[in-house]
C-alpha cells in the first residue's frame, strides 16, 4: 500500500491523467447507461399497460364469472384480473366520456357489457403470449369478444427488441472502448516506471513484491476513475435536462448499476495492471 501511494506521489500528473482518462471513458458509458435506462423505463411503462379485455354476455351467471376469474388468475402469464361489472362500466363511461353524459344519463337500459381486464406479468408481454391469453379468454362461452390491440402490441415488442439490440451493441462498444482505454492508461503508467522495475529485478526483488504496488495502483486508478465518472454523470443528469431538454423527470440509474459500474472499473484497473505488469516483469524472470 505504501509503495502504491508512493507511486501516486512520485508521478502525480501521470496518475491524474490516468484517472481522468479512465473517468472520461466511463462517463460516456455512464451517460449511455442513463439514456438506455430511461428509454427502457419508458418502454416498460407502456408495456405494463398492455391489457387483454374480454367482454361478457349479459347472461353470464355470477358463479360462472367467479370460477372463470379464478381460472384466469391461475394462468402463468397473468399478473392480475380485474372484473368490471355493467354498472361500473356505465359509471366509468359517464365519468370519462363527458360529452356523451346526456346520452348515458337518459338510458333506461345499460347497454355496456361487463368485462375482464387481464394484465400480464413482465416477460410474458410478447405478441404470442398476449394473443394466446386472448384466445384462452375467448374460449369461455359467456365471453362475447376478447381484444388486446394486436397491432400496437407487436409494434411495442418490435421497439423493445430493437432498443435492446441497439443498447447491447452500443453499450458493448462503449464498454470495449473503456476497457481498451483503461488497459492502455495503466500500461503507460507501468511503462513510465520501467526503470524502477528493471532495478528491482536486478537487485533481486521478488516478482510479487514488484507487482503488488502496480496492481493496487491499477485498482485505485480504476476506482477513482469510476467515482469520477459517476460524479460527472450525476452532474450531467442534474444540469443537462433542466437546461436543454424538455423532459420533466429523468430517472437516475439504479444503485445496483452505479455500484456495479464503480466496482467493475476497479476490477478492470486491476486486470489491466495485472496484464501489463505481468508482461513487463515476467520477461526478466524467464520461463516459469
Amino acid at each position, binding site marked *: 500500500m505504501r509503495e502504491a501511494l508512493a507511486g501516486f506521489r*512520485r508521478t502525480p500528473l501521470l496518475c491524474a491523467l490516468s484517472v481522468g482518462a479512465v473517468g472520461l471513458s466511463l462517463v460516456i458509458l455512464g451517460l449511455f447507461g442513463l439514456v438506455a435506462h430511461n428509454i427502457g423505463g419508458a418502454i416498460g411503462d407502456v408495456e405494463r399497460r398492455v391489457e387483454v379485455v374480454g367482454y361478457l354476455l349479459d347472461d353470464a351467471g355470477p358463479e360462472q364469472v367467479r370460477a372463470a376469474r379464478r381460472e384466469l388468475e391461475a394462468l402463468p402469464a397473468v399478473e392480475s384480473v380485474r372484473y368490471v361489472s355493467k354498472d361500473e362500466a356505465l359509471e366509468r363511461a359517464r365519468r370519462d366520456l363527458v360529452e356523451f353524459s346526456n346520452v348515458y344519463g337518459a338510458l333506461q337500459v345499460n347497454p355496456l357489457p361487463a368485462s375482464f381486464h387481464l394484465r400480464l406479468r413482465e416477460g410474458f408481454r410478447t405478441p404470442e403470449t398476449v394473443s394466446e391469453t386472448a384466445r384462452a379468454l375467448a374460449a369461455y362461452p359467456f365471453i362475447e369478444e376478447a381484444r388486446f390491440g394486436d397491432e400496437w402490441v407487436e409494434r411495442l415488442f418490435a421497439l423493445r427488441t430493437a432498443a435492446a439490440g441497439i443498447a447491447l451493441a452500443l453499450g458493448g462498444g462503449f464498454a470495449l472502448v473503456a476497457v481498451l482505454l483503461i488497459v492502455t492508461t495503466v500500461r503507460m503508467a507501468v511503462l513510465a516506471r520501467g*526503470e*524502477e522495475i*528493471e*532495478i*528491482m*529485478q*536486478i*537487485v*533481486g*526483488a*521478488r*516478482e510479487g*513484491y*514488484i507487482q503488488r504496488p502496480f496492481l493496487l495502483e491499477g485498482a485505485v486508478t480504476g476506482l477513482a476513475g469510476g467515482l469520477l465518472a459517476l460524479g460527472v454523470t450525476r452532474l450531467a443528469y442534474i444540469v443537462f435536462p433542466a437546461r436543454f431538454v424538455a423532459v420533466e423527470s429523468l430517472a437516475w440509474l439504479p444503485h445496483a448499476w452505479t455500484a456495479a459500474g464503480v466496482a467493475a472499473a476497479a476490477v478492470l484497473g486491476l486486470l489491466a495492471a495485472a496484464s501489463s505488469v505481468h508482461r513487463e516483469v515476467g520477461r*526478466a*524472470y*524467464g*520461463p*516459469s
Partner: protein
Amino acid sequence: MISLRDVSKAYPRSGDALRGVSFRLRKGEFAFLTGPSGAGKSTVLELIHFQTRPTEGEVQVSRYNSRRVRRRDIPALRRRVGFVFQDFKLLERMTAAENVAFALEVIGTPRREIAGRVQRLLSQVGLAARASSRPSELSGGERQRVAVARALATEPRILLADEPTGNLDPDASGGVFELFRMLNRLGTAVLMATHDADFVRRHREIRRLELQDGRLVGDSAA
C-alpha cells in the same frame, strides 16, 4: 562458484551470440572478460545473472543450475550476484543515498536498518559526503560508485560488471577499478567485462577470458 559448460546462446533475430563457451570462476577470484563489441561479453553476464537461459549447455552459479532453476528462486540468486552497468542505471529523481536505500527496501530490509546500512555502503565506496546529491550532480566516477554501493546492498558473493569504466575518464576508471580490487580482496568474486585492451594489458596479473564472435578464444589461466 560460477561454471559455464558448453554454453551456446542463439537469439531468434540476431542469431548465435555464444557458441560452446566453457569456463569456471572460483570463489573470490577476479577475471576480465574481454573481446570486441558484439563478441558476447554481455550475453555471458546476462546468463550468469539468469536474465536469459542458454540455448544449449548449462550455467551453474552457486547451487543454482540453469536447467533446473525455478522461477521463484531467481530473486535469491540475484541477491548473491551484484550487477554494475556501463550506464549506471541510477534513478535520477533519487539522491545517492535513496538509490542505495531503494535496493535495500525492495529486498525487504527492515526499515530501521536501512539508514545505517546506506551510510556504511556509501562510506565503503568513498561517497559518504555525497549521500544527498542526485546523480545529475555527481561525476561519472561518483555515479558508478553509487551503482557499486547499490550492487553491494544485497551482500553479494559475486560482482558482475558490464563495461563499468566505459563511460569514465582514465582517473575515474582507475578509481572504480581499485574499488573492485578492494572488494575482491574482501572475498567478492569479480567478473568484469571490458573491451579496453590497454586497460587489460596494464593488469596482466588478473585472469583474462577472451571472447571473439561468441567463442572463448583465450583463457590466461589455462
